[in-house]
């Protein structure tokens, strides 16, 4: 790992692809966390890494279809999740338990996702090189 990092530095960051995971655990609009993670993800797209996006706990609310934010005077950023495909960010994961306890179903979501069990999500998380969470 250390050697790899040194090579990475010597080559100016080229060549090494790490598994990145961004963990979304907050609802949109009530706090700025959801939007901030999304911006971080968009920046990361420039670095050609193996990006995984996880939506768990209240993070699943970020993907709810049909947001209309004019009434609260905030920008609706949910359409940006649909643009991620254009940045080759296509690994999106949601866990079934988080959907269930919120009365949501996969059909409520604005983008195609892989629905995992909480146990499968734990396993996936365990395979990552870098994890960033909010």
């Amino acid at each position, binding site marked *: 790992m250390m050697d790899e990092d040194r090579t990475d530095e010597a080559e100016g960051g080229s060549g090494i692809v790490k598994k990145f995971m961004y963990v979304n655990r907050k609802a949109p609009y009530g706090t700025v966390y959801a939007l901030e993670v999304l911006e971080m993800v968009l920046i990361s797209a420039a670095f050609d890494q193996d990006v995984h996006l996880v939506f768990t706990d*209240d993070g699943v609310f970020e993907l709810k279809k049909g947001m209309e934010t004019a009434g609260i005077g905030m920008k609706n950023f949910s359409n940006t999740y649909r643009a991620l495909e254009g940045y080759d960010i296509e690994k999106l994961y949601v866990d079934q338990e988080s959907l269930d306890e919120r009365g949501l179903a996969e059909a409520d979501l604005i983008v195609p996702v892989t629905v995992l069990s909480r146990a499968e999500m734990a396993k996936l998380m365990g395979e990552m090189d870098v994890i960033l969470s909010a």
Partner: protein
Amino acid sequence: MSLLHTVAKSPFERDALSSCLDLSLPGAAILLYEDGVYGALKGGRFAERLAEAAKTRALYVLGPDLKARGLGEDRLIAGVTVVDYRGFVELAAKHQAVQAWC
């Protein structure tokens, strides 16, 4: 006269709604707004507790916050009234005091 209780945080993340339900009296009004609106989701973890509270307390949800989060009134448990900002002000004005659970 009775109190208006307001809850603005997600019940899945904070215990604001739970404390509100414990510490509000029958006859009180409870308004859910911002991330607090998630508490009223039909089929959600808090649906049953809130439905029970609705028997003795007046429950309200702020419409613009619901709409922003992609939730229609059809996604809420029965017995919840959707109000707009004007309705929020009217509720605050007609109650003896406001207790904000934030």
